[in-house]
């Protein structure tokens, strides 16, 4: 119950920060700083893939409602929610992630490198899919590539800052407790 409440609050905070802080920053037309999808990355290891995708859809749809453009962010979120379990399975030895820690972080994934790789790949996929859908009608491939690269770089920077500031205390959980 406490866990659920934590995730609901986190969901609301991510949406509000994204819409009312980051979307208001007009750095350049090329760059949109996105961090709200960190919510998906921070969801527990144990979550099944189908509920994961449904929650991701809900998150994306909330962002879309504020931008009055339904579908774009929802599609990108569903994509990274679908890819996340594959990546985690690839990066982490199965038994560690299943039992000891609750959600992905530098500590629980057994190294900053592995965690950052996960975040980088998912950030890139999210941005690429989002801008691909948006740029569908324009068909300007270089614009699309540069925009994806720059936005991914800015997102990564923000995510690293968020990780450093907000220290999620990850308890080491054992089966005996």
């Amino acid at each position: 119950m406490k866990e659920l409440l934590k995730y609901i609050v986190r969901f609301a905070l991510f949406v509000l920060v994204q819409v009312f802080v980051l979307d208001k920053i007009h750095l350049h037309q090329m760059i949109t700083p996105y961090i709200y999808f960190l919510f998906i990355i921070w969801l527990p290891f144990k979550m099944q893939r189908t509920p994961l995708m449904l929650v991701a859809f809900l998150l994306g749809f909330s962002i879309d409602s504020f931008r009055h453009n339904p579908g774009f962010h929802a599609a990108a979120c569903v994509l990274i929610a679908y890819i996340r379990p594959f990546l985690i399975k690839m990066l982490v030895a199965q038994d560690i992630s299943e039992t000891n820690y609750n959600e992905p972080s530098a500590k629980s994934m057994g190294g900053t490198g592995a965690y950052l790789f996960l975040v980088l790949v998912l950030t890139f996929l999210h941005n690429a899919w989002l801008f691909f859908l948006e740029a569908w009608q324009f068909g300007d491939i270089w614009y699309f590539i540069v925009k994806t690269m720059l936005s991914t770089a800015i997102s990564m920077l923000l995510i690293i800052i968020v990780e450093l500031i907000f220290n999620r205390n990850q308890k080491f959980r054992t089966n005996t407790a």
Partner: protein
Amino acid sequence: MRNIFLFIRRYFNLLVFILLQAFCVFLIVQYNRFHQAAFGATANRITGAINQRYDDVGYYFRLKKANDSLLKANEFLYNKLKENYTLPDSGYKTKIDSIRVDSILQFRTYGYYAAKVVSNSVTSQNNFVVAYGPNIKYLNEGDGVINMNNAVIGIITNITGDYAVILSLLHESKESTITARLFKAGEVGTISWDGKQPNVLTLNNIPKGTKVVKGDSVVTSGLSTTFPKGLLVGYVDEVYEEKSSSNYKIKLHTAADFTSLEFVYGISSKHADEVKELVKKAKAKL
């Protein structure tokens, strides 16, 4: 039959993924078609209310800017007053009409209704402005919207309660509905946006040979019921010759500053329904 169930169970995640993606793409395609808002009214109302709260705070800090802008608009209107002009006929006398009927009213074709911008974006590929105000009820979907200094902002796509969602000029436009006229040359073309910079538009379908110079103003054509004639759209920046056609491609910079919108006016045409009806009848005869 059993195999089908086994298949579904085996690939359930993949199927859910594909279904959700398909639904998203359906939403994108459905919504982008102009005037076909598949989006729920509740979503608009909820986000509208939250946006309004946020804007209430932000507005306080932008009061100075809003003030300056209002001053400019007022100056423009003062200059238009009849008292500022001397009539060429020196023998005229003012007579007061004793009939108590507003004779102007029947000739009014457009009404202007003010609204406050509560949310605005310029960075996505389709940008929307949300406006709020008690006047919204006089406006309809498809009505044009201008800013305080008579520059075109966009067209209303959706109205729920006191909120209006406006599709700004900054949207990818396959079927652009906004036509514009070169003020000096008089040629009419269509306005589109390439999705890159929030203050650069393109004017298409201007035939080669038209006299265009950098700095020429581009105004609304008045050929549709959306906007009256002569509202500013932008100023010519560069003129390119399209190789494959006999048209110019003209880059404009917008007259309106889309990054700082405070108040907007919705323009409701009194003849819109009549014109629509006529066109419908004409189409039926074909």
